[in-house]
């Protein structure tokens, strides 16, 4: 069980953070390619969010209007992508920031790990007065805490 990498994409599709935790799991690509990857994924994610087999928003609203006006969850789009060699989990926050976690296919508890990563992001990035929203994340504490957490996970 190994976590390979983490990517964070802001709500405009820009890459704001990327880090590899394990050499050899994924092909090495340049920072430029990471930027392209983030932009591409952002587009694909937007498309998958519209491909909702349960029908579009309107019918949802009509059918649920009788049940005390509970709003259905908006379609979330792509969540997991699995291949022979890796598994990619995508988590979208309420504010539209996307966390992509790459792990090997046997990794368990990805949801919990994702939750913890998000928690660290809110703690060490959002509470940092020197971080500007939507800009690349350069926070020592976030790096350090994330690395030690993932290292602990990988060594299990």
């Amino acid at each position: 069980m190994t976590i390979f990498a983490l990517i964070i994409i802001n709500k405009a599709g820009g890459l704001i953070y990327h880090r590899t935790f394990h050499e050899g799991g994924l092909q090495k690509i340049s920072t430029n390619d990471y930027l392209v990857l983030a932009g591409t994924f952002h587009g694909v994610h937007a498309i998958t969010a519209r491909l909702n087999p349960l029908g579009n928003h309107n019918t949802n609203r009509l059918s649920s209007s009788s049940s005390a006006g509970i709003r259905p969850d908006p379609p979330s789009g792509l969540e997991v992508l699995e291949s022979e060699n890796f598994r990619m989990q995508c988590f979208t926050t309420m504010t539209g920031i996307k966390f992509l976690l790459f792990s090997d296919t046997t990794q368990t508890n990805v949801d919990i790990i994702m939750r913890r990563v998000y928690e660290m992001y809110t703690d060490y990035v959002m509470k940092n007065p020197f971080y500007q929203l939507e800009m690349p994340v350069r926070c020592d504490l976030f790096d350090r805490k994330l690395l030690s957490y993932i290292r602990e996970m990988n060594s299990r």
Partner: protein
Amino acid sequence: MSHLGPGKASTSVNGKDQILPAIGGPGGGGGSSSSSGGALRYPSNGKTIYHRPLNRSKTSELSQASFAYLFSEMVSYAQRRVTGIQELEKRLNLQGHPIGLKLLDLLLIREPPRSQTRPLNIITLLHFIKINLWMHLFGRQADRLEKSSDAATPDEYMIIDNEPLVNAYISVPKEMSQLNCAAFVAGIIEGVCDGAVFPARVTAHSVGGKEEGEMWPGKTVFLVKFQPEVLEREALIGKG
């Protein structure tokens, strides 16, 4: 107080509370919420924060997250229109100073009556800061207290905190590496020293990341530099 009408202010002049006319004075009875349309509003029973017992909030705790967001905004606020890191630290220091002045009184009044006197020499003052002030602000004592080993600077003392609470979520960018946001806490310490009539300059320095600092990357030294007259007085007391 300028928002109060002249008539209202004059009603309380003959009364006892000239300082807080709106609380004690006008309404007399219960429903005296300020109707003058001013910015300040008082609860209808006239009880303000000044009426609460001083010891009630002694053991209560605050959310660290809300403090982190507040402090983050305070740093951003101090950062506006400053030209350098020193000026930024100076502003954070100034934000903390009045807190220290007030905390000295509050913490002393909460002491048992026998030990309610203010600290009279440097060592008791520094212990008061290390133990009482730190316990009140951060829920634990400061990690170490040291006197400068340099013979040329006998007026310098160091209070050491391995991981200051105010810096818990703050990563300082590389181009501002000299900055330590604990300058705010340094301001509080300075306020306590000034309030106890031990005028001093207090600055915060990061020492983590060096030789033994690996274990505590956020380790901070608060350098307390007393004014010469403090040492002079201390020497006289020692002789007496």
